[in-house]
């Protein structure tokens, strides 16, 4: 699966939050997207999934060569684009386990049973115990727990393209390492990814093929792994 973002401009609250942004994510590629707070990372993700408050005023988004701009959010999701939320909302009264099962069924490429087994494996690896699976989706979860919940949903969907909006924020080191390995494995099996993060740690076990820096809604520079080090050492301002 490939996702092409072509010269995209997005308006939210009558402000241009993404400006003439272009990026191509191919099968199995890992792209890192970094940038200061408010630089347009989350807006970009919202626009890719068709959030109603984010209006595309110019450019296009192509999935496997076809524009998805006219599609509803759920249609984009069902085609295989997944977004891991920076701040996932709580869905009260809906247990994690049944939610994951429903999501897995919606996206079933294989028998839901196999998916559930994989989810259970991942849950154990990232220290997300069974007691969480009995709880309502994200309800009363800490920041890190919410991110773990997002990772399991990623596993339930098993998407062709995955956007991770700060999936590492608030996650403890051991779990983070396990998380990164899971992402790396998914990429090796063909999932193209965009990983948004402020910290280079996640990329230690899940090395990006490309690194992009965004500022004021525009891609300002791109490079390989070396760019990560530079950002870490010098900060965005100097790098940009």
């Amino acid at each position: 699966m490939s996702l092409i973002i072509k010269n995209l401009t997005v308006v939210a609250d009558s402000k241009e939050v993404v400006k003439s942004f272009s990026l191509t994510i191919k099968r199995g590629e890992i792209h890192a997207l970094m940038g200061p707070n408010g630089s347009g990372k989350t807006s970009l993700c919202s626009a890719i999934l068709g959030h109603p408050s984010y209006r595309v005023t110019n450019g296009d988004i192509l999935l496997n060569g076809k524009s998805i701009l006219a599609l509803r959010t759920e249609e984009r999701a069902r085609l295989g684009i997944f977004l891991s939320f920076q701040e996932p909302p709580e869905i009260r009264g809906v247990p994690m386990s049944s939610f994951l099962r429903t999501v897995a069924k919606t996206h079933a490429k294989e028998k839901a049973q196999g998916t559930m087994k994989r989810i259970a494996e991942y849950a154990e690896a990232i220290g997300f115990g069974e007691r969480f699976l009995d709880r309502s989706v994200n309800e009363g979860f800490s920041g890190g727990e919410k991110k773990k919940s997002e990772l399991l949903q990623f596993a339930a969907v098993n998407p062709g393209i995955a956007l991770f909006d700060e999936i590492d924020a608030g996650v403890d080191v051991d779990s983070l390492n396990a998380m990164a390995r899971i992402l790396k494995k998914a990429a090796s099996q063909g999932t193209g990814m965009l990983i948004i993060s402020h910290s280079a740690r996640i990329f230690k076990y899940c090395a990006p093929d490309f690194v992009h820096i965004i500022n004021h809604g525009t891609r300002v520079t791109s490079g390989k792994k070396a760019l990560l080090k530079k950002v870490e050492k010098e900060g965005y301002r100097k790098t940009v």
Partner: protein
Amino acid sequence: MKQKYPYGFHDDVTPLYRANKGLSEAVVREISAIKQEPQWMRDIRLRGLELFTKKPLPMWGADLSHIDFNAITYYARSSDKPAHSWKQVPKKIKATFERLGVPESERKFFAGVGAQYDSETVYHHIRKDLEAQGIIFTDTDTALREHPDLFKKYFGTVVPIGDNKFSALNAAYWSGGSFIYIPKGVKVALPLQAYFRINEKNMGQFERTLIIADEDSEVHYIEGCTAPVYTTDALHAAVVEIIAKPRARVRYTTIQNWSSNVYNLVTKRARAEEGALVEWVDGNLGSKTTMKYPTVFLAGRGARADILSVSLAGKGQHQETGAKVVHLAPETSSSIVAKSVSFGGGRTSYRGLAQVARGARNARIKVRCDALVLDTKSRSDTYPTIKAEEHDALVEHEATVSNISEQELFYLKSHGFSETEAASLVVSGFFEPLAKTLPIDYAIELNRLIQMEMESNRPTA
């Protein structure tokens, strides 16, 4: 794909007997004669009709002005007497109950089942081992014949004939319903179930249920109801009385799923004696208009009430529901949780009473109302009344109104759920406290019903 109300079919069954339409003393006398009742019951019926005629329609609550009481059939029976095995139930009627899953669920998880079709109970069965313990579970008409002393001692003691216009109407025309007696110390592990089905057009169904749980006993009763979809209205005006003797525990669960042409006006009330616990679990998914406020009189020291009222109102529906607790004795406590969802132009109202009478020292009342309003066409109101005559009463009332946030909706859609699926999921989650009280198959069925309601009412975006 839109799914419609799946129970809206009607059977081509010609009743053995159908009373003339409309209110009349002659019909009341006729019903009493057919049932070969004692005179005291016929007198109650006539008094009920008199009181019904005298009392005005309530000036509060839902709009009932469109009910045409003279277009209603007040009594219709399709079988001679209740059968004790499904084999003896008339074929077409049996097929209906099979379609509704009643015999199947009986085999799976009930200790006894009653099934009512229009005015009369067509089937009643209780497991032999329970019967041997002295448990009585039968239709109310049979109880009047076979257990006259018990019947007379409790009938009308919790809901007097003239309590309200519709309890009076029920007194006049009552037929069918369940009669339950649980002897001292007997605990019934599996629930007893009753299923109420209206089939006739413009039918009025007036079942009367009486539950007596003797000291230290325990029972759970579940009722479900459906009706065909007709363009003209039907009326369901039941009365339920529960007597929980000292330290008894009674749970009464209703999953009301009437078709959208049924006026559902029901009086449900319990008396909890010393140390007894009464739980009303009241789920209202269907009907055109419902007015129902399950009530507990906490009459003995340390009695407890737990009421969960859940309502879903779509297009053209008004669910006027709530709960009442009246604390008459010291150290009594009660909890009311009311949850309602309105969508597609539907309306929900919570109407509640929390009362502490003089002498009911150290009473505790906790009321919580949560309303979920899914769109701007829909409406939700709260009408709580609190009357406390003791200074040490602790009454808490909390109310919230919410909707599905844009973020929540986007989150679910980005997981592949359509707008309707997302809304159904949020509503199911909101109703989780109800699902939790039900046997697992029932809980799954509940979620399926919610989804169907939402799909049939909501245009897909």
